[in-house]
């Protein structure tokens, strides 16, 4: 039993004074229901989560008390991806025909302040100033650029592309294009990464209506099929965020593991991908994740950036909606935003940022603490 995405909805990302995260989630659900032409009472099950804005299942108070099973997912940055995997399994198994996935969040300004104890790390780690995701991304970029001979100028190119794509996306938070010079000149947060090379914790909501593939035409004339959705945690020897120590030996990252499994399950290779959304917590990770996900070779990224291959009109458009850098990162919604964008693009409905040539295969990848990755392949 294959699974189709037949409705998508989003609350714009950004900062929304006076609007709760839950309200943004409920808005996204209503938009997705409208898009699929169904009502809340038609929904047989729901799966969703937020990191910091309340329990997703409490949305039934606003959407309607219909007794449907609603499962909360709390899986850090992979909350959206994990929710989707749950929903996919519930339909694929034959348990349900139609369900909804929702993710939303609302974070305070500034870097995330995670409690070390929640990850089994001593309080010394936070007190001495090591409990920052931004440090990991700085050190990952430092090591990656060093190992693969990529120059620091590549970092500003990634961010400039993100802000440009964001300027073409009415749902994006950052909608003003920024030049490489301005990006390089912004505050140095975690060398070699400046402020404008990072995404910020933000707000937003996304929902997707999913159904049995054989029923999809009932709801839409442009169904998008979920070919695979895969989640992986760390292997011994990988280099991940919030690690007080690393093994001397290196192993594949969760992104490498999850992407390979997602392509295998879909029966589609990375070379067939028409566009991709990859986790760009910062410019450095867009660069490393492209290769970790098999979309290019390690070290090839600088040439891709120089020739504009990853721009909307290029041979491998990446983060066409502006990615995390231009949209911010409301943790519960972020992974679903990527799938929302892939569906918009495969429907040919992305307007001025539409990938040309009627794209048919789209890939998405999220990465987050403490070393998890979720990847999906969707097709027309």
């Amino acid at each position, binding site marked *: 039993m294959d699974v189709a995405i037949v409705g998508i909805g989003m609350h714009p990302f950004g900062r929304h004074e006076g609007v709760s995260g839950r309200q943004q989630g409920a808005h996204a659900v209503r938009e997705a229901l409208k898009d699929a032409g169904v009502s809340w009472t038609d929904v047989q099950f729901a799966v969703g989560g937020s990191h910091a804005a309340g329990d997703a299942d409490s949305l039934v108070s606003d959407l309607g008390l219909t007794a449907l099973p609603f499962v909360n997912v709390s899986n850090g940055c992979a909350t959206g991806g994990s929710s989707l995997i749950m929903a996919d399994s519930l339909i694929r198994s034959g348990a349900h025909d139609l369900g909804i996935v929702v993710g939303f969040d609302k974070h305070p300004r500034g870097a995330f302040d995670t409690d070390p104890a929640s990850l089994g790390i001593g309080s010394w780690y936070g007190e*001495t100033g090591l409990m920052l995701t931004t440090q990991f991304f700085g050190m990952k970029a430092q*090591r990656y650029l060093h190992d693969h001979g990529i120059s620091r100028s590549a970092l500003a190119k990634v961010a400039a592309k993100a802000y440009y794509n964001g300027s073409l996306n009415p749902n994006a938070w950052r909608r003003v294009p920024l030049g490489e010079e301005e990006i390089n000149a912004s505050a140095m947060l975690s060398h070699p990464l400046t402020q404008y090379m990072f995404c910020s914790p933000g707000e937003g909501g996304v929902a997707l209506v999913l159904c049995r593939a054989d029923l999809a035409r009932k709801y839409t004339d442009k169904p998008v099929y979920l070919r695979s959705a895969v989640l992986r945690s760390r292997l011994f020897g990988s280099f991940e965020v919030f690690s007080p120590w690393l093994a001397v030996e290196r192993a594949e990252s969760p992104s490498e593991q999850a992407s390979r499994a997602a392509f295998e399950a879909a029966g589609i290779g990375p070379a067939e991908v028409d566009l991709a959304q990859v986790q760009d917590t910062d410019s450095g990770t867009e660069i490393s994740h492209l290769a970790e996900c098999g979309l290019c070779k390690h070290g090839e990224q600088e040439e891709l950036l120089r020739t504009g291959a990853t721009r909307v009109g290029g041979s491998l458009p990446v983060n066409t909606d502006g990615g995390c850098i231009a949209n911010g990162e409301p943790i519960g919604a972020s992974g679903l935003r990527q799938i929302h964008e892939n569906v918009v693009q495969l429907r040919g409905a992305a307007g001025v940022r539409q990938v040309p040539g009627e794209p048919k295969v789209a890939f998405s990848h999220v990465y987050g603490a403490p070393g998890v990755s979720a990847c999906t392949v969707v097709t027309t």
Partner: protein
Amino acid sequence: MTKSRLIDDGLFIQTDDGPRLVGSSCRSCGTTTFPRQESCPKCTRVDMADSTLPRRGTLWSFTVQGFRPKPPYAGPAEFVPYGVGYVELRGAVIVEAVLTENDPERLHIGDEMELVLRPLRRDEDGTEVLTFAFAPAR
């Protein structure tokens, strides 16, 4: 004389040369962790012994923390950017630590580094709280 204490006694072991970092080493597969842990994340066995970590190593990667972190960060009231890095301790384990150097132009992957203790803050009674850091080796 100023009183001082280590930030977390569990991270250190006293030796004739002063405090050293201590981790756990798996009796079965030889994997070393830092800090100590009860079980081996590589072979999954629960058979770990204390392992005093080497004092010196090489810089594996680094960054400079450019803004004051939110709590639970408990550094000095006046914020000074600080280096952070991973130091590979002679084939044993790669440890994350504050670096004494905060100028990225003076740090390079592969640099020789050595363990030092340095003050982080003071307790209410004036006791100096010491944490571990790595300094470019002389």
